[in-house]
């Protein structure tokens, strides 16, 4: 097995162009498991750990530019205000050791439907910046996942960073599992409120071949909040609205039975998470006066 150690981004792209079948390795928390279990035996690895810029982040006016290899523990410590949904999700990833090594680039590279960063990225709104010697492109995150553990990367491309919308309102993430830590999600749900545009974002994990948004649920909720004047009044979301929202979230799911839970249980639990996170974000919205016009 060849082990390539590019010193910077240009060298990394060149290495990937020269060895399209080489497997990039960032934190290695997915790659090493696969190698250890004999699931794959690549003829070359490209170690991304010498590339400093992949571990950097930058907060802009509207977006955060998150380097592909910023570990979860730093997202939790350094970006809880700008990326609250992602920080909450990062909290639930593996164990401290895994959170010190693993990051969003690797989660996107692996593209597991159960990856915990996907729901908050979908809910917040994000673009994945990928590059090759041929150039750079930005892929909306909902187009990035193309199938079970498949993504939109071309063989010569690497993920450079993710551009994530800065939170302009409350965000939540919730996950169901058989224990309290070190657990692959049975199902997960992310929800973001965008009071400025009076929109909401959702992200569903572990309930379909890929992470997905529940577009119909988002539009329904936006409309219901608008029509009842709730963005302005900060009034309580009627239970019927929350219930319909949850039903539409479940309608976007396409779960399977597996060792972690049945499809039926996943649908049920997803509805619970949708109602629960809606409660949480709305309480926070009402409490914090997130850009709300005084009624």
């Amino acid at each position, binding site marked *: 097995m060849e082990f390539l150690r590019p010193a910077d981004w240009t060298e990394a792209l060149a290495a990937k162009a020269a060895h399209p079948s080489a497997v990039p390795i960032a934190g290695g928390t997915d790659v090493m498991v696969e190698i250890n279990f*004999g699931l794959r035996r690549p003829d070359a690895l490209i170690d991304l750990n010498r590339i400093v810029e992949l571990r950097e982040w930058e907060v802009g006016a509207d977006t955060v530019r998150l380097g592909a290899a910023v570990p979860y523990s730093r997202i939790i410590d350094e970006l809880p205000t700008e990326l609250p949904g992602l920080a909450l999700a990062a909290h639930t990833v593996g164990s401290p050791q895994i959170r010190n090594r693993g990051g969003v680039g690797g989660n996107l590279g692996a593209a597991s439907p159960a990856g915990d960063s996907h729901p908050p990225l979908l809910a917040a709104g994000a673009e994945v910046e990928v590059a090759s010697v041929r150039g750079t492109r930005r892929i909306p995150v909902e187009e990035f996942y193309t199938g079970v553990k498949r993504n939109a990367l071309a063989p010569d491309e690497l993920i450079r960073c993710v551009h994530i919308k800065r939170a302009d309102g409350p965000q939540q993430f919730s996950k*169901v599992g*058989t*224990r309290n*830590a*070190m657990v692959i999600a049975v199902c997960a749900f992310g929800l973001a409120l965008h009071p400025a545009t009076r929109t909401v974002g959702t992200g569903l994990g572990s309930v379909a071949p890929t992470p997905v948004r529940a577009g119909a649920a988002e539009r329904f909720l936006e409309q219901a909040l608008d029509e009842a004047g709730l963005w302005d009044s900060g009034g309580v979301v009627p239970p019927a609205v929350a219930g319909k929202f949850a039903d539409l979230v479940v309608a976007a799911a396409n779960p399977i039975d597996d*060792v972690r839970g*049945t499809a039926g*249980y996943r649908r049920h639990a997803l509805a*619970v998470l949708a109602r629960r996170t809606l409660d949480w974000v709305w309480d926070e919205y009402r409490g914090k006066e997130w850009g709300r016009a005084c009624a």
Partner: protein
Amino acid sequence: MTGTTFGAVPWGPPLGEPVPRLDGRAKVTGSARYAADHTPAGCAHAWPVPAPVAKGTVTAVHRAAAMAEPGALSVLAHDDAPRLGDADDRTLAVLQSPRIAHRGQVVALAVAETLPAARAMAAAVRIECAPVPPDLELTPEHPRLVTPEGAESAQGDFPAAFHGAQVRIDAVYSIPPLHNHPMEPHAATAQWLGGRLVVFDSSQGSNAVRDALAALFELEPDQVSVVSEHVGGGFGAKGTPRPHVVLAAMAAMAVNRPVKLALPRGLLPALTGYRASTLQRVRLGADTEGRVRAIAHEVDTYTSPLSPDWRERATQPTRSLYAAPHRLTRERVAPLDVPSPSWMRAPGECSGMFAVESAMDELAVACAMDPIELRARNEPDVDPHTGRPFSSRHLVECLRAGADRFGWADRDPAPAMRRQGRLLIGSGVAASTYPAEVIPSSARAHANPGGGFLVEINATDIGTGARTVLAQIAASTLGIGVDELEIDIGRTDLPRAPLAGGSCGTASWGWAVHKACGELSRRIDEHQGAVPAGGLTVTVDTTEDLATDDQYTRRSFGAQFAEVAVDVDTGEARVRRLLGVFAAGRILNPRTARSQLLGGMIMGLSMALTETSTLDLAFGDHPERDLASYHVASCADVREIDVHWLAEEDSRLNPMGSKGIGELGIVGTAAAVTNAIHHATGVRVRDLPAQPDALLEAMIAQGRI
């Protein structure tokens, strides 16, 4: 064995003190060396090739591709492996026959210059086999279920008494296969030096490993040395010699070099034993006051053809637990084409007590009685199975002391009544018990002329703190501090001693250490306190001390209390509080004792909520083979957990007055948790573990939410 044949260790410091582990520093700094940390010069590495089918015959072993790997040394298989003698354990007859007894059995061994090369070779070996349909499923109607000799007991007339009882409980409980998974997977480094075999093995008892290797390789025992100086846990999985050590020794012989073999974790369930699943029917017949008149406990389980005498003895605790004139216990076992089950922490007792202590809770509900009062009402005067008195039995005291600490007094027994937001809260209790046995042991104590002592015994410290506690026993007997002596354990070159298992290590070894140190003190006194130039050495054996007639049943007891919160929306159950109160004789080191009991309770919590494995009927082994899919409770699952013990005086045990505590903590925990789930939700969990989807479905079906 009576209370008069031994003197007692003087009670007082350092015995009974929370002495920190003597090897703690070596372990946290990495200088403690485990079996795979030894790399003799020229050491080669081995990697096993597991059987791809559950039953059949190996028809060909294709080695060419493996031998073409750089660094390849050899591929051993049944057709060329050295012939072995008989060690009375068929799991150790590795590579001796083309027959496949279970999936995962080792059918070939790759040996190479490096570990990666050995792995690559193992992946390249192609095994051809003629499969035969395996028999994998245990049902109560299985035609090969038999009741072995001694697996049955009956007193009075159970059927009539049960039939005539005012209140009857008749329920079936099930436990899935469970895996030991010690942190350190099994490993051995083997080396032939002339005609001698030297092995570093990760084992709970190196004497048995030596005896097995001597028999297999047809050597005298003193031609074999086995070292198990530091062991990273075992929970029974290292209680008997396992195939890896034989494979390492065989490979070292074949390639004429030292060989190291560390089992990949994924092969532990197939090669090192597990808790076989049990189907358990418990029947209790009582009067309306909760006096149990009839008790029956029947267990169906399985073993493998390689371990025909094995069974999970789940009815054992029931025989001695509660008074009732009409009793019946029966264990049936079927040989299935599965990996060999074996010891897992509190084998038998842990499985059985889940069922019995659940049934007692069901009876308490049926009689509208407090579960603690119910147990107190059925407390026997003597062991109901043997008629012998207990050397000491403080179960009721544990229950009452636990009730005080837990705040049981205010408990409303009605189920599904306590709500906090979307959570249902409940509490439960169950009893713990485990035999307090002793096995003969030898030990040697030596006094140096210039001061200082050396105590030698082939005890094993598998992380429990045995090394430290033995030093405390020696120091107290000699009237010195632990820093004034050296303790040497974990090698067959030392005086022979039993394994670290069955919760009898400290009692057995401690007795021998006490005897050796006591006699050494007397010898020093004979020399007017002056140790002669050559030093003084005493070697003792406790076989005769233990040989006297046994009049007592010796058991430890305890009570465990759990508080759970069950989410009504998702069915997630979490243990908020866990309390254990135990009566286990004198506690020799509260620090290490607490961690044994605490560890057992956490493992029991895990058994209640997260640990589960499946016997896959398509392949014949367990798909949950790693710690990602086999869920042991994580730190975040263990909230408040509290361990206490009563000051129990029992002069009929051993010179220390101690009972074993390695296993007691896991017994009963699962029932305490599932009884609490019943109190919280009204749902009775009879099939472990209590997982969210099943619990939610049951809550909905019962109209509880």
